[in-house]
């Protein structure tokens, strides 16, 4: 418990430090942050009024305090571009990103774990000789390139899937849930989801395989064999279950990392998620929005790191021994 609390404390500390680094990074950029949003024909007074409206006339330290104060209240400021609270804009994009990330991760892990276990069991076979290089190749392929290839073939050549977006034009839903569970949304989701899943499955596959190999050598497996249990039972009941634990941890970390990494896939598929929002905000120099989107991604990442850390420790007693050396 003490460990959990201390990790929690560190996580919050890290979030604060990252937030601070971000704040100063965005403020110390050359040029007025508002340049892109000041109308070229407006007068100097109007420009100053606009600067004051966004609080940019105060000292850096005052701005920082205001930033922290607002942050504690869940206020990420006003977007220059959208003229709306950053939180609103971010929350509009977040569900799309979370669904994309989770669905592709689940797909990747289900496939990866099964394939990894299979490859471990078929150690030394031709399947392994082919399977591992393929898994390494998918991990080496840039996601956006995979996306481009899928897009060119399945959308432009075959016309099976839409070329981008998350919903068709003009459709209106009673709620966000209804939208997300519509056939139309799924139709838009499939290509980006497949792209991410192809990229992501390599990790659980390789991880599962190496864990299985390790577990298979441990005593209880040998014991099982001596007891005359069938190899199938051993594989499923004992080895797989034990080898799964680190994979589960990797899943938690994967959520955090993938949300940050979705940037490119969302851009390729014009998928209105958090990553594309961040890229657009950075390109348009919408600093509050870029900062807000970045902070939300960071918060997810740190939370997932925390969960992974805790679960890893709770699930795998060996870690405790290792770290007490």
């Amino acid at each position, binding site marked *: 418990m003490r460990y959990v609390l201390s990790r929690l404390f560190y996580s919050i500390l890290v979030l604060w430090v990252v937030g601070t680094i971000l704040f100063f990074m965005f403020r110390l950029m050359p*040029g*007025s942050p508002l*340049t*892109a949003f000041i*109308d*070229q*024909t*407006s*007068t100097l*007074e*109007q420009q*100053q*009024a*606009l600067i*004051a*409206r966004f609080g940019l006339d105060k000292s850096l330290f005052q701005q920082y305090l205001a930033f922290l104060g607002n942050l504690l209240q869940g206020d990420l400021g006003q977007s220059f*571009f*959208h*003229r*709306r609270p950053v939180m609103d*804009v971010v929350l*509009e*994009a977040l569900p799309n990103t979370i669904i994309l990330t989770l669905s592709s991760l689940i797909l990747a892990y289900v496939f990866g774990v099964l394939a990894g276990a299979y490859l471990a069991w078929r150690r030394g076979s031709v399947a392994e000789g082919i399977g591992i290089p393929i898994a390494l190749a998918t991990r080496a392929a840039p996601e956006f390139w995979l996306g481009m290839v899928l897009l060119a073939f399945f*959308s*432009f050549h075959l*016309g099976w899937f*839409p*070329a*981008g*977006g*998350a*919903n*068709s*034009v*003009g459709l*209106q839903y009673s709620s966000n849930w209804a939208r997300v569970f519509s056939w139309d949304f799924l139709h838009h989701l499939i290509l980006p989801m497949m792209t991410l899943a192809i990229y992501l499955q390599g990790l659980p596959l390789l991880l599962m395989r190496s864990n299985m190999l390790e577990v298979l050598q441990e005593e209880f497996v040998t014991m099982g064999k001596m007891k005359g249990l069938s190899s199938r039972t051993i594989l499923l009941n004992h080895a797989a279950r034990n080898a799964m634990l680190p994979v589960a941890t990797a899943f938690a970390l994967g959520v955090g990392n993938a949300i940050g990494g979705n940037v490119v896939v969302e851009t390729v598929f*014009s998928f*209105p998620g958090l990553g594309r929002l961040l890229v*657009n905000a950075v*390109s*348009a*120099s919408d600093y509050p929005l870029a900062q807000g989107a970045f902070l939300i991604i960071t918060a997810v990442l740190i939370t997932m790191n925390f969960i992974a850390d805790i679960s890893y420790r709770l699930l795998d007693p060996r870690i405790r021994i290792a770290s007490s050396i």
Partner: protein
Amino acid sequence: MSITRRKLLGTSAFAALAATFVGLPGISLAQSTSPVRALTLYSRAQAANPQQYQAAELIAQAWSDLGLDVTVSGLPQNQLSDIVWYNRDTWDVTMWQMVGRPERSDPDEFVMNLFHSSNAATGFNFVGYNNPAYDAIAEAQRLEMNRDARKVLVAQAQQKINEDQPYAFLVYPTKSYAYNTAVFDGTTLVDAPGLGIKNFMTFITVNPTGTQRDLLMNVSNELNAINPYYISGAGDSWMTELIWDRIMRIGADGLPQPWAAESVTWNTEGTVATIVIRDGMTFHDGKPVRVEDMIFSLESPKKEGTAPMYRPFVDPIQAMTKVDDRTFTLTLAKPNAAFETSTLAKLNIIPEHIWAPLLTALAAGESAESVVEDTRVGSGPFKFERWNQSEVVLAADKGHFSQPKVDRVIMRVVLNVEAALGMVRSGEINFLTDYTGDPELLLSTAKDAGNIEVMDVVDIGFQFLAFNNRRPPFNDPVFRRALSYAIDRRLITGAAWNGFGRPANSHVSPALPFWYDASTEALPQGADLAKKMLADAGYTIVSGRLNYPAGVTEALK
């Protein structure tokens, strides 16, 4: 690549150094001249505007033949405007563009704003062109109410600019639009000069033939406002002109005609207009459109800080008086030939009962631009229905005096041009209103699909290269001319704009045939000509670099 580049630079620096040493004795013999500094040619980043960037690279290639050291620097929009617009003394040459808008179908805006010296400090004359003779012509054309006499003045203005070359005009791009012939009757679209089929009139007259009665269009940038006092970009200006009516509208012939007014009559001096409004118009909330609303719409932007964007257009108005429930008069300080186009056809009719309280509630330093309404109430042919990040939905106002044939207009934000094309192909969009990609690909897509018709139009706007007229050597018209003549417009049009454009040499586009001066097309071109002009003006080439005429030294870094 970076390695080669560095190596190349290294070698050339070394060569230059060696040349200096070898050349040392020569300097005392020849008259000492000073080389023109290395120049940076700014452009939008390649990813954002590949045509412009490609044109910049071609120009840099052409100029290096003249002995200039030119580097192309592609920047994001904000950094580019930070330099070009806000630090007007710091740059040398930049790529830039002026876009076509309905109110620019009167030449006044470009003739006056782009080159009048009063706009040099902070206004649109960002190149700092200053020629009293031009100023006089520009002012005169605005006062001239006789169209033919004014045409002569506008032609003179174009010739002056042709002589002085404050810009090197490059191309009037062709814009491509496309619509789905299975959804719309093509004969009911209005093709307006300089604007093409995407203009206000089309939205009123276009007739859906089948069950799909929604017009589904696209825009390639996100919107940041839908506000009758503010234009933040192309997309929202298309929406505001449908939601809010105007006293006059630009017709299919490019000329203003009464719209929400029954008549607009001027006195003989051209200083007093009598405006009679249509009977029975209502705002979308059911309230009637009154003379007071019209006066409010034209008066409210006059107040300092309310609507900076619209203020210049109402500035010429001296007084407005209500005559009766359907009539008011409007007095100008002096005649203004462009007034109908630039003011009466541009300003939105805004409901006073909604906006008067909003304007009084503005905090200090805030303008109407920052107001975000929950809903939008106008009196135009389309009612505002909803707007989220990805689309704007408008519904036809069945009670409007010019009721649209379509049921709804839905504008979808599609940032990616490839995706937009895919959506046209799949029918998700039936009116491609904002296409920034390869026109050839659009044509071949349309051909394959069979039910997509592409319509091109030469733009009112243009692409150009701006010289900073304030900074030597660009303060010298001869130098500007030589550099401009060195650029092969045909090559640029073909290689950068893929042939989808028309070589340009005037700030009045051929899309406005009445005003366009075709004599500007006789633009001499060629590297040899440019070299000769520079040599005649005293410029010399010393060890491959262009040098100033004797006696002139480089004053800038």
